[in-house]
């Protein structure tokens, strides 16, 4: 009966009805209750999607509306003014964020990519599993705890807050993300390519660096950019490492302003003018981060590593 209906081109809904009540023989629709539950569930899923997207759109809308008015040349070129004085900007914080992220990349990129290579090319054993698990643990450590650890490791020994310690804290947070992304991408490189390289007499180190890693480069770069975007907005580990600074600083061993720290300080301050600057600072921060993520998305969706 069912197969016949199928061959005759009956729709699935009709099929369902007939299968549900085989004894009745005739095509009967699904009961009202079940149809209502089905529609209710569909409505809930759509509602959930809307409810999740509303805050996202609201946050972006507020950032643009409240922030765009305060982004001007002064904001991008001046240091903060004392409270009560209008004007001033976050130039030192923008540069400070750049400085901290540079230190973070110097630490995070080589260690992250290195561990990723280890996990993919050498790590198919118990020790590799252990490193993999440790990387996941490190990934889950609350950022504030990393802040404490770096504080007692570097700040206490150096005797003052510094850009270096902030960079180290963020660099540590980058490592696990980059390592796991690199591993994943290297594992996607077909083994045939490696074997071809070995067959030509190319040593393993060269095969790994120039052939496997280069084949996987799009995905690895994605992972690095995502890690970068993730730490760029981090505030908690910087509170007692980079500490913040109202003035210019380009030295690694001095306290440094950072965009996220500045936004935090301004947001919890009682001054209206600072609130406006906080919105503007957030807007710039988010443009940097979302820009990085979107750029990665666009370039990789065209490249070979689709869906990376």
């Amino acid at each position, binding site marked *: 009966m069912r197969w016949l209906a199928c061959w005759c081109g009956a729709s699935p809904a009709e099929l369902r009805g007939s299968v549900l009540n085989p004894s009745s023989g005739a095509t009967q629709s699904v009961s009202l209750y079940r149809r209502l539950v089905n529609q209710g569930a569909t409505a809930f*899923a759509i509602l959930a999607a809307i409810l999740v997207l509303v805050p996202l759109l609201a946050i972006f809308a507020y950032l643009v509306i409240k922030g765009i008015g305060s982004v001007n040349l002064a904001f991008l070129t001046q240091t903060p003014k004392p409270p009560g004085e209008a004007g001033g900007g976050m130039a030192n914080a923008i540069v400070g964020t750049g400085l901290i992220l540079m230190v973070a990349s110097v630490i995070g990129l080589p260690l992250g990519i290195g561990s990723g290579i280890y996990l993919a090319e050498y790590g198919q054993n118990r020790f590799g599993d252990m490193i993999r698990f440790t990387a996941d*643990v490190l990934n889950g450590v*609350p950022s504030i705890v990393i802040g404490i650890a770096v504080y007692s490791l570097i700040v206490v020994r150096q005797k003052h807050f510094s850009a270096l310690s902030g960079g180290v804290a963020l660099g540590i947070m980058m490592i696990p993300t980059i390592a796991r992304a690199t591993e994943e991408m290297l594992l996607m490189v077909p083994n045939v390519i490696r074997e071809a390289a070995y067959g030509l007499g190319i040593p393993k180190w060269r095969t790994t660096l120039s052939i496997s890693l280069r084949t996987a480069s799009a995905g690895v770069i994605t992972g690095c950019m995502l890690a970068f975007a993730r730490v760029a907005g981090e*505030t908690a580990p910087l509170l007692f490492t980079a500490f913040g600074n109202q003035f210019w600083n380009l030295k690694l061993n001095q306290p440094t302003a950072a965009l996220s720290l500045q936004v935090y300080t301004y947001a919890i301050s009682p001054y209206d003018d600072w609130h406006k600057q906080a919105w503007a600072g957030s807007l710039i921060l988010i443009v940097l981060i979302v820009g990085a993520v979107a750029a990665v998305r666009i370039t990789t969706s065209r490249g070979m590593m689709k869906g990376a």
Partner: protein
Amino acid sequence: MSDSVKPMNSREPDAQLPKPVTSMPSLAKVDAGHRAHTASAVLQKIRTSRPGSSRVPDQVFGLIILLSAISVFAIVVLVVWELVSKSQLSLHQFGLSFFYGHDWDPVNGNFGALPFIFGTLVSSLLALVLAVPLSVGVAVFITEMCPQSLRAIISFLVELLAAIPSVVYGLWAIFVLAPLLRVYVEPFLEKTLGWTGLFTGTPYGIGMLAAGIILAIMVVPIIASITREVLTAVPQNQREAVLALGATRWEMIRVGVLRNARIGIVGGIILGLGRALGETMAVTMVIGNTPQIAKSLFAPGYTMASVIANEFSEATGDLYLSALVEIGLALFLVTLVVNALARLLVWSITGGTARVRA
């Protein structure tokens, strides 16, 4: 050229090996690059075609790579070591009473972390209560219902939620969410659900409820993306089989998809919990920062992470600092257990292929 296809590991006298590499200059350079400069050119070419000639560079490379892998391990050990050694003072002074004492009195050197533990637990649980139905709903919508054209856009937007820095969430919560709660939501909740005792008192806007809501928004992308991965891992046959039995779409999702994926979804939820427990900035900005244990969700509270963020750089005295580090240690241990549990669950479903980002 027939000799060039000889297996690499056939150990023959050097002299009998021709120079297969000369036909591929770029590759010859690859091997020649790391040979000693003293050797003559001919000898060098012969040597480079010998197996084992790249042994030393390979070993050096392997060592460097191994060291960077060990660095991950070393960092975690260092973090734990610093936390344990710096919290010794407080550990000895208070012992277990640190975790059930509810006085936080830096002036008299009396520290009990119960209000912070309470705040962390309540805000995280509240976040999960709000976030779980939403994220599972979104994941189901993306994988099972959404038109193909919308699918990529919606999952990208949900992932974008994870890219927003927590300080921006905090800023938005202070100036948009909290006033909204104070003016509209909290009076309404008090009128309708005030009898439960959970929604009473002055509606400040800022407080446990605001913290829970902002945490929920931050946790949604994590739970949703893992749930999506897990739902996609459910074999298509399952869906077709349940549909063939006459199920409606919702019945198909419930019986064929969600039931199969439940362990992975629980894993995603626990991973979200891990994120919520350790989240600092956004919560610090809206929870009110008052160390108290109140039944009402309108009341301000304090979390473990926020007390560290607020007081660590101003802590005077070793005991005070040590007590704060001990809170950090407790936070680390809790998130460690939570994350390990979550990853085990997610891995058991997806066989380790799901990308776990938190």
